[in-house]
């Protein structure tokens, strides 16, 4: 085994970190969460120029052939910087879905994503089906699409939604113009925008149907594992930032005449955070390598375990970071609480801990080391 990041991946991560350091800040983030439209045109362009738009996609699909690990390192840096730019929601997620579908039509749409011409987002969840994404409550009856989608990331600012529905009990993937829907936007826990989208007898043409049946299911399943890995990457970035800031704080904050890091209980809290962070790093590398496997068993085992683990340990790190900070930790002024919300947010997307524990318990057994 070999755990060294490929040179190219390190370069991508370093570039992302430097770019965000120079072009993003906690102050920008705080403006960001107050704004309605949350895509900053100049950063969006810059991200495209950094090659991020093509990164997740194979060269044969018109991308730059980056691995999930490459993308995860970018997303880790976005998490570490508290950056809310919807790179995952509007580029990676819809793009990977299109790539996994792999039809001529979908690959044509993908090339628009890579070129920055398309504004897409995925609408996969609704209140009724919850995590049972293969059986959405939305129905396609003949040419008419009716139902709702909830928790739609990017808040419905995209012009086209890649949405799931059932047609005669069969899963279909559709590309639906947002203009045909009613969109109710609101703020999400992490500060970004999400939306409830209502589809009221929306007329669907054949060209809007991207995939159906097994093909649609498989594309969706691969997408979810990919996104679950990126949830972990984002949480890792945040948890790492929380640990660093908390350690620093413990060394400088004085109470009773000494730095609070001198108290054994704070030391043990921090050691626990440190050790958990190491394990989170291992799980991130594991899931980033395995969650894009074509082997469904390998992919699901990795993504399910990682997501369940993160929803426990990254959340715990975030809670302890606040506790050690004390009063300042619960203020909007300090980034600590914002990272806490980000971690909580990501622990709930694409399946919460209970969902993944149950799912893992149902997977086939493998021999250790395999």
């Amino acid at each position, binding site marked *: 085994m070999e755990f060294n990041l490929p040179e190219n991946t390190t370069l991508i991560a370093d570039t992302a970190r430097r770019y965000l350091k120079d072009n993003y800040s906690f102050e920008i983030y705080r403006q960001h969460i107050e704004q309605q439209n949350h895509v900053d045109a100049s950063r969006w362009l810059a991200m495209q120029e950094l090659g991020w738009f093509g990164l997740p996609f194979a060269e044969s699909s018109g991308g730059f052939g980056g691995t999930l690990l490459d993308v995860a390192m970018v997303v880790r840096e976005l998490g570490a910087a508290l950056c809310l730019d919807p790179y995952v929601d509007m580029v990676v997620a819809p793009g990977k879905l299109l790539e996994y579908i792999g039809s001529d039509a979908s690959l044509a749409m993908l090339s628009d994503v890579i070129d920055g011409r398309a504004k897409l987002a995925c609408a996969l969840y609704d209140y009724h089906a919850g995590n049972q994404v293969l059986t959405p409550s939305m129905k396609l009856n003949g040419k008419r699409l009716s139902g709702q989608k909830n*928790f739609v990331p990017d808040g419905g600012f995209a012009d086209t939604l890649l949405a799931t529905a059932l047609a005669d009990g069969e899963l279909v993937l559709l590309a639906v113009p947002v203009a045909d829907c009613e969109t109710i936007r609101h703020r*999400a826990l992490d500060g970004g925008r999400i939306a409830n989208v209502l589809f009221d007898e929306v007329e669907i043409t054949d060209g809007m149907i991207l995939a159906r049946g097994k093909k649609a299911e498989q594309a969706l399943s691969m997408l979810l594992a990919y996104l679950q890995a990126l949830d972990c990457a984002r949480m890792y970035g945040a948890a790492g930032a929380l640990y660093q800031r908390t350690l620093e704080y413990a060394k400088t904050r004085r109470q*009773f005449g000494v730095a609070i890091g001198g108290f054994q209980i704070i030391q043990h809290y921090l050691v626990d955070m440190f050790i958990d962070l190491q394990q989170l790093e291992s799980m991130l590398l594991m899931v980033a390598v395995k969650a894009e496997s074509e082997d469904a068993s390998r992919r699901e085992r990795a993504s399910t375990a990682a997501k369940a683990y993160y929803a426990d340990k990254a959340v715990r790190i975030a809670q302890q970071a606040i506790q050690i900070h004390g*009063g300042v930790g*619960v203020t909007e002024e300090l980034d600590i609480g914002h990272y806490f919300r980000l971690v909580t947010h990501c622990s709930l997307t694409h399946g*919460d801990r209970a969902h993944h524990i*149950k799912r893992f318990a149902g997977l086939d057994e493998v021999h250790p080391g395999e």
Partner: protein
Amino acid sequence: MNLDFTREEQEFQQSIRDWMQTNVPDDIKRCSAVGEMTGKELQQKWERLLGGQGWLALTWPEQYGGPGWTATQRYIFDLERAMAGAPPTSPFGVAMVGPVLYTFGSQEQKDRWLPGIVSGGTLWCQGYSEPNAGSDLASLKTRAERKEDHYLVNGQKIWTTQAHWADMMFCLVRTDSTVKQQKGISFLLIDMKTPGIEVRPIYSIDGHHHLNEVYFTDVRVPLENLVGQEGMGWTIAKFLLTHERTTIAGVADSHHEISRLKKAVAEAPGFLDKSQARQRIAELEIELMALEYTNFRTVAATDEGKPFGPESSGLKIKGTELQQKVSQAMVELGGMMSLTWDNPETVGSNVFNRATRRYNFLRACTIYGGSNEIQKNVLAKMLLGL
């Protein structure tokens, strides 16, 4: 040994329940149903309503306006208040400065300040913490210099809850910097409208404005606003720490939150594994039961005129931990339904929508009033002799 309410207490409970049903304002019920905070207006409306009933200064001797209830009655009242979805009353007047005034204050001070607290007319805030005196309160620096007919106060307080609502602040200030830390501290009442006071908001991670920084620049405070003697501030602060523990565990509000959670789970869409969810809630209910009976022991001891027993020492620690756990369970059982921060009440709105607000809010409860770590340090020393 009797672990049931007496028939009289049961009747009292029923009468309070009935009263709450009729009298808790609808706008307050609406807030609590969706887990929203009551703002200043609603809070004060509620407290004045209770004040009008004589049900605000619950722990006070009747001569000062207390209802003359037993600790058990107060406990029952709190329970029914919470179960009716009404917010706890602000502690600064009734639970803090009031008892200080009727214990340490002069007759003039009592006459002047107690009625406003009893009626809910005057809002108070607590000026204790400072930027470098949080857990280590004794190192506070805000100073009050004694002049001819007033104190001149300069300095800064922080984490001052509801300072932006308050008419008055009770405040620890340093009146003597030549003596040992604790000895130079005095207890002062400050009118928040006095020139030289600036209140700056601190927004909390639940998105709300509860906390403030308060700056004092040459603020003139009448000499008669000193409570007790100069240098008695620490004694008074410590007196308050050991005062009334019958509701410190937050049992009533945890009951209410668990009941909201159970309702939310029952009404949740079918994708939630309800059997699993109910088991997680059962674990919390059982922890609450242990806390509740521990709390009952303190309540009963209070009614027997006994000092707090050792059981009371863990009430705040366990109570705040449990509040956090219940809230975390609500967020996690909500799953993706908890992802919304301000979902307009149109589509799929439910209890879970605001779960994370409270979850964020409650991160503070293991920190304020002496973090749970500090509490454990104190218990190790005082109670365990370590």
